[in-house]
């Protein structure tokens, strides 16, 4: 069964690595729903969040292939219940409508939208949330003339993760002494996690 999975990938900050990771998906004709790269909790280490909809088996295999890449330190995959995730959305609507129709103003507020810019022609609102919410807001704004809409990639934090600090110390040891085990890469498959 296909499911939405969020990958969290810790990497070196290397030119070309984005391509190396992206072709893992395109080679298998898998569509990337969302991709974000950003700094991580550790200076010099990058963090990718990639969202795909696939079976767990496919995801597991891809994650292993990704982790095999020389400049990748570690890759995890999680279902939505194991992560806290957010996306940012921006909406541009005509200022006239917002001013005229009190309903629109209220609507936006009920969705937690925040004004980030106002000119006499347009107003830009921002919401932070999950896709279903932002999608809903577009739907209700559409009749009032939504000029522009953009949504960011998903960023996610794994609920059970202790962050990468400790792991990095193990990685920096030239001769690791204990197998590195992961408890949150996959619940069912703790016997086949990658060291």
């Amino acid at each position, binding site marked *: 069964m296909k499911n939405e999975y969020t990958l969290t990938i810790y990497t070196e900050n290397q030119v070309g690595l984005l391509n190396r990771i992206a072709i893992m998906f395109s080679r298998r004709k898998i569509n990337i729903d969302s991709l974000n790269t950003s700094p991580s909790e550790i200076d010099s280490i990058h963090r990718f969040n990639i969202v795909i909809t696939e079976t767990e088996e496919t995801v597991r295999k891809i994650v292993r292939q990704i982790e095999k890449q020389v*400049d990748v330190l570690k890759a995890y995959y999680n279902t939505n219940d194991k992560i806290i995730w957010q996306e940012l959305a921006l909406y541009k609507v005509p200022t006239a409508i917002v001013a005229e129709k009190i309903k629109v103003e209220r609507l936006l507020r009920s969705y937690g939208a925040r004004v980030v810019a106002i000119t006499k022609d347009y107003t830009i609102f921002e919401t932070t949330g999950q896709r279903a919410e932002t999608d809903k807001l577009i739907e209700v704004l559409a009749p009032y003339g939504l000029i522009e809409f953009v949504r960011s990639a998903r960023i996610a934090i794994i609920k059970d993760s202790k962050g990468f600090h400790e792991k990095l110390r193990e990685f920096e040891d030239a001769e690791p002494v204990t197998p590195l085990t992961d408890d949150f890469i996959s619940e069912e498959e703790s016997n086949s996690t990658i060291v």
Partner: protein
Amino acid sequence: MQTETTTDKAVTTEIVTEISGSEAVLKALIAENVDTIFGYPGGAIMPIYDALYDFNDQLEHILVRHEQGGIHAGQGYARTSGKTGVVFATSGPGATNLVTGLADAMIDSTPLVCITGQVFAHLLGTDAFQETDVINITTPVTKWNYQITDANEIPAILAKAFYIAGSGRPGPVLIDITKNAQVQKFEYSGYTKCNHIRSYRPKPIIRKEYIRAAAEMINKSERPLVIFGQGVILGKAEQEFKQFIEKAGLPAAWTILGLSALPTDHPLNVGMLGMHGNYGPNVLTNECDVLIAVGMRFDDRVTGRLDRYAKQAKVIHLDIDPSEIDKNVKADVPVWGDCKESLPLITALLEKRNHQDWVSKFSTCMEKEVEAVIQNELHPTDEVMTMGEVIYQLNQLTNGDAVIVTDVGQHQMVACRYAKFNSSKSNVTSGGLGTMGFALPAAIGAKYGAPERQVVAVIGDGGVQMTIQELGTIMQNNIDVRILILNNRFLGMVRQWQQLFNEKRYSFVDIESPDFVAVANGYRIAGNSISKREDLKDALATMLNHKGAYLLEVFVGKENNVFPMVPQGCGVSEIRLK
């Protein structure tokens, strides 16, 4: 470069001097014990070639005739020497000509460091003359690649390149160096080998619990079958492997890349796996109770249809690459790690056994195969020669001591099936990619990798025409290789499929060849061509005894087929004997 690497302090550090990037490249090669480079010059790599002029006494450069030839030679060198092959090419077309070899080395885990020249850094992205985006073209077919635009990076990046290419599961690395970095002078403070990269775990740690589980499973097994691949050779674990199978009396079958890791006449060597493998190992894969895979990756040419593959068996999978575990066949016991370390740990826990009855089943199968296929192939009564009898006669003369390099097609399958091997690293073939044109240049490299050994390239009349220009390399450098063309006047393997599966609709498999002996002679290489059985022995002996390179063409049956065969889409039990 923000990647952090730790390095081996023990290696020489020289006093700081100013040298060019090109010199730094060559110093790196020397520090890595490189003795041979296969390459082809051009504009963007000229500074390195200029520096090479002064390093001629320390580095032997072989000028090939085509960069594809260069990289296949590098592969052949790596396979017989166990070292990393080094290849030079210029930018643009020089670099793109490497792609087939990179893909081949990637899928067959061959350690290579390829160095390509690139246009000046300030011209990157401008469609400059001979500029190609080599890094992005080669990303899917390299274990790692990197573009150097500043000479200061050269020592550390090359140290990384050699470490990555040769460690863990080996593979090809490509380093693209812009021309400005090649000419740039910088303060050189010596070369330090790399032995750790924090983001790279070449060897997963062996887990004791799986060692115990594996040993227990093998001890309880009544019908164990070991299947082994190139991992045994790459891990230099031939001895450890032998002790493992001998202690518990485990019959062992090989993939074509595992071939020669275990001597052909070892009593527990039960033959070849897969599409054109032996009858016994294929059908008995579906009868064993425990399947122990060592350093192999369950390629579809080995497994046939997966849902009919070893369903009854418990699977133990030893591999250094964790991403291979469960990729194609689910493992009950995954033993990650270098088999040189994991095998002895398992062996220590094994009970001494000999599975006589079970092993004898393989002999029974072999008798059946001899009768149906092998007898006729090795000792035909027909007038036309078979590929099998040529290999058989070759065995008689080499005693199994030669390195055999094969191309791709029927002759490859026949050579792998019937060639005799006494020692490891003796079989060089393009397994995963199946690259026609591989053998001639790979044989050149194989000879440089093992100069004391006899090297025989077995090639089809089709494949030899893909890289025949490398006869020029052989001529110029007096490379002592034997070229045995098995000429069936067809693209034989494709013709066989068309006969069996496309109702003999022979679509573009009828291939005409030049007078190969005349071509060889044109390159000042001696040769002979025969089509009669009574000439075979002498012709082969002449080929082997000749001083220097020699080409022998043997005309064999036009429409002979390779059997047994597991047709594509069938399970291994459905193997056909005719």
